[in-house]
């Protein structure tokens, strides 16, 4: 008796498991099959690589204009250099979302963003290196160079254009430091871009959802970038951390040039592009949104997320272009509203999205069965 019951039961389970391998042909409902490979392909070829290309193009121009400003410091060449910087800083907002593969942290080298675009920078360190005639960058003071180090040199703090020009005219090492900084910026981005050639097939081939898969890298960086926008570009300058008794307007990104608000808006745009899977020119493609359309509970989440994205957009639109520092000091409620609405968006990007697409967030093992 025991024997028969046992064997029948076993056969039942075996057949349950194996039948799943054979019912492909039958007409049971299939989820809209989502190809992560297409998402990765679209992201890499239409967004990530073109973003780096754009940064390289603009920073070549930046290099040239800083060189000519150094050769003959005058109002025209200064304006030229500043214009070039603005372009590069705008292009950078897109590229800053993808600290993966060649741009990821490796050994003592930090992520590309941390290596070449840290903010706030330390003007004291920059002035000290210039005084010491040291342009080697052989140190870990990453806040003494990069995109926002160049910004400081070109825009300076509370001085007239004439004085900026004078400072350059009178200091060979100020010129050298500015040129070395823009070289370094271009070099680092170019290296990453070149390494992407070899990384691209790997990126597309690692199409799982486990840790180490490209989707998980992409997702984790997307989230990090979003939280960086919320916490570092708004939260801290707004004085929103516990124990912060006052605002810290000088800690915004790009506090010397006065483009901080526009750059934040550009950053927000890049977040939306990744969500929608748009290419650099804004043409539709496959992104996280389309991925969600294929999974359980996905359409509800898309609806809720996009509603909140509209709310974020409204607060960004209400924020006048120009200096975010000034906005924080003079019309606190407007940048604060952006922070509040970004906060409300967080859960959709953070836990809901990752949970629904089943992407791994950490290395640690889950609970086994």
């Amino acid at each position, binding site marked *: 008796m025991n*024997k028969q019951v*046992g*064997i029948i039961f*076993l056969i039942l*389970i075996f057949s*349950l*498991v194996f*039948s*799943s*391998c054979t*019912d*492909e042909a039958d007409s*049971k*409902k*299939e*989820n809209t*099959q*989502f190809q992560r*490979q297409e998402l990765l392909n679209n992201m890499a070829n239409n967004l990530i690589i073109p973003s780096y290309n754009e940064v390289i193009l603009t920073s070549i121009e930046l290099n040239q204009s800083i060189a000519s400003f150094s050769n003959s410091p005058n109002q025209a060449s200064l304006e030229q250099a500043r214009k070039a910087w603005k372009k590069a800083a705008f292009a950078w907002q897109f590229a800053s979302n993808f600290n993966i593969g060649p741009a990821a942290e490796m050994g003592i080298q930090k992520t590309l963003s941390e290596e070449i675009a840290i903010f706030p920078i330390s003007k004291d360190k920059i002035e000290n290196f210039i005084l010491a005639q040291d342009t080697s960058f052989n140190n870990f003071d990453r806040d003494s160079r990069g995109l926002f180090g160049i910004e400081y040199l070109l825009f300076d703090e509370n001085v007239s254009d004439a004085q900026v020009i004078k400072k350059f005219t009178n200091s060979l090492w100020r010129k050298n430091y500015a040129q070395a900084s823009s070289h370094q910026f271009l070099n680092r981005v170019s290296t990453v871009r070149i390494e992407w050639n070899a990384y691209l097939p790997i990126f597309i081939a690692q*199409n*799982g*959802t*486990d*840790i180490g898969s490209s989707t998980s890298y992409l997702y984790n960086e997307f989230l990090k970038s979003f*939280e960086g926008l919320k*916490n570092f570009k708004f*939260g801290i300058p707004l*004085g*929103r*951390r*516990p*124990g*912060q*008794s006052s605002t810290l307007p000088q800690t915004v990104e790009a506090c010397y040039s006065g483009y901080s608000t526009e750059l934040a808006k550009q950053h927000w745009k890049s977040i939306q592009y990744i969500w929608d899977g748009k290419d650099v020119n804004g043409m539709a493609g496959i992104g996280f949104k389309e991925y969600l359309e*294929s*999974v*359980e*509970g996905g359409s*509800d989440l898309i609806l*809720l997320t996009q509603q909140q994205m509209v709310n974020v957009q409204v607060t960004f639109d209400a924020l006048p272009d120009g200096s975010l520092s000034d906005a924080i000091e003079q019309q606190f409620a407007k940048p604060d509203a952006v922070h509040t609405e970004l*906060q409300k968006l967080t*859960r*959709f990007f*953070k*836990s*809901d999205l*990752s*949970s*629904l697409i*089943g992407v*791994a*967030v*950490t*290395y*640690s*093992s*889950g*609970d*086994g*069965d």
Partner: protein
Amino acid sequence: MRKWIKHTTTKYIDVAPLVTFRILFGITTFISTLRFLLLGWVDLHFVDTKVQFKYFGFEWVKLLPAEWMYAIHILMLMASIGIVFGAFYRISAIVFFFCFTFCELIDITYYLNHYYFVSIIALLMCLVPANVNYALDSWRNPTIRQSKVPAWTINIFKIQLIFVYFFAGIAKINYDWLVEALPLKIWLPANNNLPLVGRVFNYTSTAYIFSWAGMFFDISIGYFLLNNYTRIWGWLLLVFFHLITGLLFQIGVFPLVMIAVTVIFFDNNVHHRLQLLMQLVFKLNGRNEVSVINLPYYEKSLNKMWLLAFFVTWFAFHLLFPLRYLLYPGNLCWTEEGYRFSWRVMLMEKAGTATFYVTDDLIGKEGVVDNKQFLNLHQEKQMAMQPDLILQYAQFLKNHYESLGSQVSKVRAEVYVTLNAKPSKLLMADTLNLLTVSDSWKPKTWIFPLDEK
């Protein structure tokens, strides 16, 4: 009945299954500890950590300095080797049990059912004479050599294993798992890139079949393994089952552990053959055959009544503790009251976003916490959906900011949790001052019920 009890407890049976069990368990703990070291998890879990979440009642377990944490892991490796070879066996088993359990108790965010399982088995290993044969101990000291041991020394492991599978099985009998095929409906399509089988995971019917098969498997596998006729097929099914889950999910060494330890169910012939194979491969001397059972050393060392009392309590605990969730109102997966230590493995897809607000009376302002400042990704992920950990973190934040000179009167949190792909919901009132709530075994009435808006 009396006969059956005697048969399964005090009757002397061949020691072979216990020996195999000892060797395989030692090998898996060795691999598991080595893997932990090589992956750099000692640093990740025990060195680069600013906050440790505590087990209720074990708040006194404190992190040791980095070199000590490494020393403990090295000690575990050595103890594992001791277990494999049956060398200084009792000491090895005790050392392993304490080191392993200590490491687990440091931070509850790393709790896994299979770590709990290893702790339990390690404790039981301390009580059995697994070194009386095929061991360096019995080779050095022939007076302890035995070819037979009391049946209970083997059966306790079988019972423990059956408990694990059975409770894992009944945990799967719930609406989401069986009727909605959740969370497998989420997890399987996430693996649709696997070679050959990947495509199959796009079908919702696959999720249903896996859900039901998994439930039947867990509930009945204990019976298959006990039954002589079905054992080999049951075990092969088990191997298949664990390999599949190992392939699909990020669950580390657990499949390997379960495949290894369930070998204990096989009958003596299988174990003798395995041991013969081992002799041939490692060119060992013949089996340490002792034909006469003379004064089993084991019975002298442990009092029978004491043992009986211990095991009655032990198994009563393991039978009842996983069922404690019945005493709590509300949805178990949502409140997590009675969730841990109950063999609920890969049962739900749950994630949360927890944003903490700290009110500083000195500056009269409320600030938002950036969790990344204090927690690693794993800790944050676990904390954000488990009510008791949310309380612990609130307390930590109060202490932290007060040490920086703030005067903290209130910590509140906005915790949105999504369970099995449902839209995320507030776990509790986002105005609640978490400092006024203390954790206990009582129902957590401050948690919002799942089914109400």
